[in-house]
Structures are given as C-alpha cells and as structure tokens.
C-alpha cells in the first residue's frame, strides 16, 4: 500500500514538467559550482603539493560542492514538496486516499518515500560529478560517503518539513513559502549565538546547518544522525496527526 502511494507520487512528479525542470536547473548550477571548485583545485595544486597533510581533492572539491548543494536544495525542496497534500486537497483527490482502506500513516509514509526517492535520484546524479574525478585521480571514499549521508539526511529532513507544511493548506504556493521560511529559520537559528562566539547552546543544537557541517567534513557523529532522524520522525508524525484531525474538523 505504501509502495503504491510512493510509486504514484514519483510517477506524478515525473509526469509534470516541474520535476524535469528542477532536475535540470539543479544539475546545471551544481555543475557550474563543481567546475569552479575543480578549477580552484588546479590553481592551488602546486602550493598544496608543498604542504604537509595538505587537504586532498575531496576536501577542496567535494565538500564545497555539497555545501553549495545544501543551499540550493533549501530553495528547491519546498517547491517539490508543496503539492504533495495541498494539491490533492484542492482538487478533491485526497478523498480517494482517505476513502480507501489505507491508514493516514500509510498515506504519509507513501508520499514521503515517493518524494525521498525523487530526491535520491537527484543526489545520485549529483554524486556522479565527484565520481567523474576518478578518471584522473583518487577520492577519499569515506569523506565522500560521509558527505552524501549528510546531504541525504539534510534533504530528507527538508522533505519531511515540506510535507507537513503541505498538509496544512490547500494552496501549494502557501505550502512552499511557509516551508521555505521554516527551513531558513532553522538554518540560521544559531547565527546570533555564533556571532557571539557561543556554541553548544540549545539553539545551535536545533540548527539544521550545524549538524550538517561536521558530516560534510567526514566527521560521523551519531548525535547528528539522530538529530536528523528525530527531525524527520517528528514532522512525519505531525503530518499524520494533521490528516487524522481532518476527519474531525471536516
């Protein structure tokens, strides 16, 4: 049942031009950033060669690439998730799901997995860029895997928040704007603390970015992974509650 809904969601995405445009634009921009980083690496190479324990190609090219990707996806994920539930509510098709012998949890998980599969495809294509460097060099696969895990978790968290926002309204645009606002707020929530030089407070723990930075550097802390899993679980649970409440409020 979950698979049926996830499959339908993925299919719907690829039937609309939106998914293709987004894939194309994101790849174009990231490709540009990737080339910039490669160029920079080539310029730095002579100097790096003289340094002891110099940063490798993975540090110079891959980490910034994922860093840029996270900002772009912050903008893009709300646009992909905005229609998930709001559009169905607006066109009256939500009734098809709620009348079928399917629980709200299954509906939410199905939709979430569908969107995560789409984002997975997007990240897989992005990962091909650093992998292409294998043609002329060697990569630190540990760091690459850490970065991919980090951006994967980050994007999955974006999607969970976007799904929840989409369940609150019947206007996709409102869902997009409000999920973008929420994500941006969580992104910058510890900036004030940072500028004061304070770290480790509640706000910096809540920040989406803080947990991502260490993963992208190849530093795997279970605390960061748990943060994202909690974040995702919480928003999915909110969405399920929202759908259940819909039956009560009408």
């Amino acid at each position: 049942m979950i698979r049926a809904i996830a499959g339908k969601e993925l299919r719907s995405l690829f039937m609309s031009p939106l998914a293709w445009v987004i894939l194309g634009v994101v790849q174009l921009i990231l490709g540009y950033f990737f080339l910039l980083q490669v160029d920079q690496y080539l310029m730095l190479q002579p100097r790096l060669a003289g340094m002891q324990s110099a940063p490798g190609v993975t540090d110079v090219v891959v980490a910034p690439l994922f860093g840029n990707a996270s900002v772009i996806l912050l903008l893009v994920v709300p646009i992909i998730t905005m229609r998930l539930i709001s559009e169905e509510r607006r066109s009256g098709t939500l009734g098809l799901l709620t009348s079928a012998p399917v629980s709200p949890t299954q509906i939410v998980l199905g939709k979430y997995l569908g969107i995560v599969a789409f984002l997975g495809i997007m990240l897989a294509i992005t990962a091909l860029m650093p992998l292409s460097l294998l043609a002329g060099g060697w990569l630190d696969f540990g760091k690459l895997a850490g970065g991919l895990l980090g951006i994967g978790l980050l994007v999955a968290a974006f999607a969970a928040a976007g799904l929840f926002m989409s369940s609150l309204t019947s206007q996709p645009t409102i869902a997009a704007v409000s999920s973008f606002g929420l994500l941006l707020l969580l992104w910058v929530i510890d900036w004030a603390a940072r500028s004061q030089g304070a770290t480790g407070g509640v706000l910096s723990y809540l920040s989406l970015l803080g947990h991502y930075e260490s993963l992208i550097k190849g530093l795997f802390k279970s605390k960061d992974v748990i943060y994202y899993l909690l974040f995702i679980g919480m928003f999915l649970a909110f969405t399920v509650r929202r759908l259940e409440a819909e039956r009560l409020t009408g």
Partner: protein
Amino acid sequence: MSDDTLIQVERLSRRFGRQLAVNDVSFELDRGEVLGFLGPNGAGKSTTMRMLTGNLAPSAGRVFINGIDLADEPRRAKAMIGYLPERPPLYREFTVDEYLAFCARLHGISRDGRAAAIRRTSERCGLEGTGRRLIGNLSKGFQQRVGIAQAILHTPEVVILDEPTVGLDPIQIRQIRELIAELGSDHSVILSTHILPEVQATCSRVQIIHEGVLVFSDTLADLDARSETMAVTVGLGEPPDKDELSGLPGVTQVDALGNSRFRLSLESGAGTAPIGEACVKAGWGLEELTPERLTLEQIFVQLTTRDEADDESDREAA
C-alpha cells in the same frame, strides 16, 4: 439487524460549530437494496455520505458496515465501501488505465486480479477504448464514469454515489441508471441526488433528509401502494348535483373544477373502480376518470417546504 444488513446507521449527528448539519439520523440498508437519498441543497446529504465513508467523524452516533464498526476498524470497514464523492477524485495527469491501476492497488487487489478487474469495470462503465487517454482530456461525462469505475472497481459490498449523474447527457444518464440498477442486484447502493425521476427510475427505497433530519423513509413499492388514489378527477357528460356526487361510496369531499369536471377526495382504502361503476350506472356519461396519486415530488415538496408554510400560517394567526 438481519444477516443481510450491510449498512446500519445509529443516531448519527454532526455539528459544524454551532450548526447542526445532520441531526440524529438512523437507518438500515439490506443487500440488494438501492436507497435514494433525497434532499434539497444543503440538507446534509453530502455530510451524511462523508460520515458513512469514514471521511468525516460523526459528533455522535455509529456506523456499521456489514457489522463492522467504522470507527473501531476503519480499514476493514472501508475495504467494503466504494465511494464516489460529489467531485470525482481524479488525477487529471494520469491515463484512465493508470488511474484505475492505482485505485486497484490502493484497495489491495492482487497483481493477478488487477488487469481483469480493470477490464471488467471499464466494460461495465462504458470506458472501453478510453484506457490510454488522459483523464484531464476526457469530457465531463466520461470523467464521471471513471469516478464511478473507481468506486466499483474492487466489487465493494456497499456502493455510495454522491450525485452520480450530474453533468451527463440524457443517454449517459440512462446508462448510469442501468448500471446502478445492475449494481443494486448484488450490492447495496446509496444514491444521493436531488433529481426525483432518478430515484423513481432506480431506487427501491427513498429517504428524504431536510435540515439534517430524516423526514421520510419508505420503500417505493409501499409508497405506490399507500399513495394510491387519494383523489379522483371525473369528467361527466351530464353532470348531476354536487350532493349526489358526495353520496358516492368513499367520497369525502367534492370540488367542481368547471367544464363538468369534478375532483372527488376519497377516504383511505376507497378504490377508483366503485366510483366509475356508480357514474356509469347513474348514466352521467362518464368521459374521464383519473386517479390522482401522491407522487414522490409532492411528498418531497410537502416535506421540505412545510416549515416555511408553518411560519406563514403562524404569522397569519398572529
């Protein structure tokens, strides 16, 4: 509750804020019955349908589908319902076949049974040849059929259709009515509508809801039997006095309609035949004898406008 009761509704109520949209509605529906759910716009028809299908939680009361409580085991109960909401829930970017395949998966039809179920349903709803077309490009009538197909795809025990013939042309309406009658033979069907001939053509039972209250519930057969000859209109070639007419068996009141025609109100149980016989015997030159029946439309109008009439008489009294 008999073994064949598929829907049992117990004292269902629903509030929206301070407004009571559905007030204490109870009824049962057996297998093989087609129930026409009538009411003016805004009477609470759609609200009741949504509660029956588990899309809206009732403020009070219970719904049992084939003996299963919809509130306790929604998934088991919903598996036995096919529902066409007022607005057909269609994914416009899907083709008909893709859409029906998704619905089949949602309802847990096994992979092997899916193609056969889709083929069978498409045939039943007259969707042959449209399988590869996008739903968004179909005409309103065909979209409505896809909506109905979606509701009966998994051969549910209970089919609930909310205004299924809206926007269809007369030929399509006839086809849909035939389909509903066919469904009624082995399922229970609830048909919400405000088109009265539709009910008379397809339903075996009628319920009228007005301002959230169930004001009328009867089978069509009983309705016919009961409403027989409340009055007769007679046209006579050589009319006698009104007094003579009121002396006829069972006649309670005589109104002259002019042109030698009279309307005779009858007491309940009196037939048309004795009147005709008497007229012929007396040599009044019987030209016309029309039994007047209380039609569904009259009942509907009477029940749903009663309040306003009462209000008026109250005002006059004051």
